[in-house]
Structures are given as structure tokens and as C-alpha cells.
């Protein structure tokens, strides 16, 4: 396949979760490249790589409940010229396998694609053992690693597609449930390029993952109140789209970040770093888990508790807009 020429086609996407879409497009990409191999650790029925196992049993490897072995074996495939897609829960991919990812995969810059499901608190009642609210920070701190948190199933398919021939390792974190679609297939997606979903000049929300839909919903509601909210889907946390961050800071002067992650080290941290490096001061608020472990509950309840839903984002935006007004006086 020529670079960038992979295609996918999934119908009825609104009925599918991101992981179901992942399972389907992976089969389509498997048809387009014999180099793709898929590895999982006794979770094929959960992360839907089972579809690939049926289509290409020779290129599918189930390592049982042994994530570190799977991750290191992915290295073996990669140094043999394959493109391994490795899937397990985000908590295991980022923490249990951290050293394999860092030393065996990221350091030699190998084309391993880690598709980590059940990220954030999408495991809901699974509780802290199964939540992943640190993975973005961990992955972001690994040199050579590309870190992506797609907003929905469509963007997941686009990120998977773009990752196939992208240089070096890629970490793609997706949720568990059936998040509402932000995108319809066929939109313009590029790794590392932020997407402006709603224009506005009073404040900007930078969001990733499930928070993107809520941020856009918040912008539409705020519009009726006369607040112009810019919404930017910062799907790629690394390499970060610095230009989009700096432009939004200069043009709106107030920034809210929204991510299903600890407020330390993830999207909010990444944007704060860009702003500090550029010497730009803005009214700033990070939404996420405020350096706490998440609770048990449904994802919807948990997202609401930590202001990652529409109402929470609206409150935060009003806060920074008010602060900005006071600062100017």
C-alpha cells in the first residue's frame, strides 16, 4: 500500500462503540496490509479484536492474561518488519506494561500501535483498578511516543488508519461505551492537527476523548447566552498542535481543558506547558480528576461529578470568562 492510502467503511456507526468500530476497521486494514498483526491478552471479546481473529487467524495472537509478555512480544514482531496492533485495557497498557512500552518499544522507535480500551473511567463500576486516569501523562512522557485520544468512533477509525504507516510507536486510548458521535465519516483528520469544532472568541475549550462531545454541546448552549466558546478537539496530545493552542490563547484569553484523566500531566498539563513556554498568560482552568482516584459509579455519573459533562464545562467556561473580565478591569 502506498503511504496514506488505507481506507475504511463502516455503516451504522452511531450504533457502535469505539471499540466495536476498532474491531471492524482493523479487519479492513488487515485486508489492505499483510504486515498487520494483532495481539491481545484474553480480551478479544471485550476489545473486539475477535473480529480480526476470525478474519486472519494466522495473524492474531492471544497471549492470555499476560500483558507484559504480549507487549514485549510486540517488539519482536516489530523488529521483524510487522506492524503490531496491541490491545488491552488502558490501565494495563500504560501501567503494567510501562517498562516494556518505554524500553522495548519507544526507545527503539518501533511501529507498535497500542490501542488501549476502557480508558478514563469508562469502566465505571470497575473502579480504580480498572480506570486509567494516568495513561496520557505516562505515555506523553515517553520520548518518541505519539499519543492520541480520539473523540468518538469515527475519529478512532481515522486515528487507527493514520497510525498504520505513521513513524514510531502510537498510543491510542479509547473508551468502552457508545459515546455519541462527534464526526461523520469523511472529515479531514491528521495526526497532530487540532480540529476546531466551534468558533468563538470569549473562551476556548480544549478537549479530548468523550469530553469533546460535551464541549461542543456546551458551546451550542452557551451561544444562546451570548458567550462565544471556541471548541478544539485536541485529539493528538503529542506531538501537540502548538499553533492551535497559542492562537486560541491569544484570540480568546481564557482556556478550559477537559479530559477524562488526572488534571496532572495529560491534556491540561500539555497545554499549560505550551502556554508557559510561549510566555502567554491566560485565565486557565483544568477539568478532569483533581489528583484523586476516581470513584465507583456509571461513567455518566462520574463524568458529571468531575464536571466533564455539558453542565460542568459550562460552569468552568463561565468561571474563566468572568475571571478574564475582572482581569481586564
Amino acid at each position, binding site marked *: 500500500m502506498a503511504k496514506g492510502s488505507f481506507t475504511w467503511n463502516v455503516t451504522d456507526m452511531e450504533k457502535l462503540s469505539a471499540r466495536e468500530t476498532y474491531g471492524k476497521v482493523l479487519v479492513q486494514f488487515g485486508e489492505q496490509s499483510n504486515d498487520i498483526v494483532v495481539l491481545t491478552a484474553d480480551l478479544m471479546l471485550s476489545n473486539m479484536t475477535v473480529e480480526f481473529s476470525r478474519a486472519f487467524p494466522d495473524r492474531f495472537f492471544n497471549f*492470555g492474561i*499476560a500483558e507484559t*509478555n504480549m507487549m514485549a*512480544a510486540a517488539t519482536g514482531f516489530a523488529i*521483524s518488519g510487522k506492524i503490531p496492533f496491541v490491545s488491552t485495557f488502558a490501565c494495563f497498557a500504560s501501567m503494567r506494561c510501562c517498562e516494556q512500552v518505554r524500553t522495548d518499544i519507544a526507545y527503539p*522507535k518501533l511501529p507498535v500501535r497500542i490501542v488501549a480500551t476502557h480508558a478514563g473511567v469508562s469502566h465505571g463500576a470497575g473502579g480504580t483498578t480498572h480506570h486509567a486516569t494516568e495513561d496520557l501523562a505516562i505515555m506523553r512522557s515517553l520520548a518518541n511516543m505519539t499519543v492520541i485520544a480520539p473523540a468518538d468512533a469515527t475519529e478512532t477509525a481515522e486515528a487507527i488508519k493514520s497510525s498504520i504507516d505513521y513513524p514510531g510507536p502510537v498510543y491510542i486510548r479509547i473508551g468502552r461505551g457508545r459515546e455519541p458521535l462527534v464526526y461523520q465519516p469523511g472529515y479531514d483528520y491528521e495526526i497532530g492537527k487540532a480540529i476546531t469544532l466551534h468558533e468563538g472568541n470569549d473562551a476556548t475549550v480544549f478537549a479530548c476523548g468523550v469530553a469533546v462531545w460535551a464541549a461542543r454541546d456546551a458551546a451550542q448552549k452557551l451561544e444562546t447566552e451570548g458567550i462565544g466558546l471556541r471548541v478544539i478537539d485536541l485529539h493528538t496530545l503529542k506531538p501537540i498542535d502548538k499553533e492551535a493552542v497559542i492562537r486560541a490563547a491569544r484570540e480568546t484569553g481564557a482556556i478550559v481543558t477537559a479530559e477524562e484523566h488526572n488534571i496532572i500531566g495529560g491534556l491540561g498539563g500539555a497545554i499549560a506547558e505550551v502556554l508557559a513556554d510561549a510566555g502567554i498568560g491566560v485565565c486557565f482552568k483544568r477539568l478532569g480528576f483533581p489528583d484523586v482516584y476516581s470513584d465507583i459509579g456509571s461513567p455518566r455519573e462520574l463524568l458529571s461529578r468531575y464536571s466533564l459533562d455539558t453542565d460542568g464545562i459550562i460552569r468552568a467556561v463561565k468561571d474563566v470568562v468572568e475571571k478574564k473580565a475582572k482581569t481586564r478591569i
Partner: protein
Amino acid sequence: MADTQSREELIRFLGDKAAEMRENIVKLTFVAGSGHIGGGLSMTDILVALYYHVLRYDPRNPKWPEGDRFILSKGHGCIALCPVLADVGYFPAEKLDTFNQLDSPFGMHPDCNKIPGVEISTGSLGHGLSIAVGVALSARLDNADHRVYCLMGDGELDEGLIWEAAMSAAHFKLGNLVGIVDRNGLSLDGFTEDIMALEPLAQKWESFGWRVMTIDGHDMGAIIDSFEKLPPTSGSQPTVIIARTVKGKGVSFMENTIAWHYGNLDEELRDQVLAELGSKRLAGGTNHG
């Protein structure tokens, strides 16, 4: 070596080469300022058998797809691997003069980003066998007939990951995978059986589904026999060779001691060690059975 060579000649050649490499390891430890000399000397004979008789490779084409793959899971054996890689032609031996220095490609652990002939960076113990499993699965997918060799230290068998890999290699029926354990009986803190007992080691591997050979890891004849007796790569069972070795082999005051897991040699000590190794070499070496 030429095919017409007699077995005795082959063993003599490999024994001489091992003796030369032991001297190189000692010289390199001096140049580097310090190094994992004990474990380097215990694995020397295995490494020499592999690189001068067993492995199929092309130093001018380190990524040769048909070549055998060697993964040094005990990455601290770098001090032994590098002189061998230089000698067989992956890079000029003079390059090793920078060992451990700022910006050198060569340090305590082999770095695949910097050293030609190193398949993957190792040093964090326990990773190598899992990586080898991926390489072996990939080779089978490609219908390739090369083998994957993975040299482990015995201390690193404490790592759970090794046994995850061992289980998966048997499960995936990797007849093209060969594990070698440098069973020198010592890890950094002491004797393996005191720190974390490994015995009965052969039974452990057997019960994990591996074909097991236990040999004297300093008897060159036994070493090459074990490699020559490997079943075809199309077989359905991985093989592990447990090579019983002596840490610090060849240097009387280093043999089987905790003190020489890692150390430095000053000029006087280096010369003393080289004199001992040299006299053994003249007397027929340590490896001629």
C-alpha cells in the same frame, strides 16, 4: 569454518577463539573503567560457539532477513558481546576504545539504536525471551527457517516475565526458538539458591513444555553438540539449553565469587589476569575438554 575441518580442529579453533575473547573482555573492562566481567566470562564459550559456528548472519547486512536472530536477554553481557561483534566484522574493534565514554555507542548494556548487530536493546532483565517469542512467531508467519536464540542469565529467571514467555513459547509451539541459560549460579547479591532458589530448574522448564538439555557450558564439544542436536525449526517444541557455567571463568580469583559480578581492573591487575589467561591458552586453553 570450512566444512572439511575435523571436529577436533573445530573444537580447538573455538576454544582458542574463546580464550582470545576472554582476553578481549579483560582488556575491554580495563578500557571501560569497569564492567560486568564475571557474567561476561561465564557466557564466553556459548557466545563464541554461537558466533563462530552456529549462527547464520552477515555482518555487512545486519538486517539480513534470512539470518538467525540472537537476543542477549542478559544485557549486562554487553562487555562480552561487543568484542565478538567487532571480531566477526560488525564494526572495527578500535571503536570499542570509547566504551562507557560520553557519546560512545557502547555502554554497560547493548543498544540497538547504536550498535550494528544488536537486534534489540536489553539490560532490563527478563524482557528478552518475550521479545524472542515475537520474533519467532513472526518468522513462522513468514515461513522463514531461521532460528531465534535467546541467551538468559540464571538470575533473571527470577523475573515473572520469563515464565510468561516460557508458557507462551510452548503454547505457540515455537520449534524455531532456542533459549540458553547461563547457569553460573550467582546473581548480584549472592548465590541464586540463597537469594531466590531456581532448582529444580530443568524440571521447571520441562513442566512449562520445553525440551531441555543440560550441558557443561565450558565444554566446547558439549556446547556445539547441543546446538547440532536441535530439532528442525518446523518442530513444535521450544528448546532450552541449561549451560552450567562458572562466573568469572578462567580467572582464578574471580571464579564463583560475588565480588566479581561487576568490577574494575587497574593496570597491574589487568596484566596479572592476562598473564593467567595467556598461560592457560598456551597450556591448551580452558575449553578443550
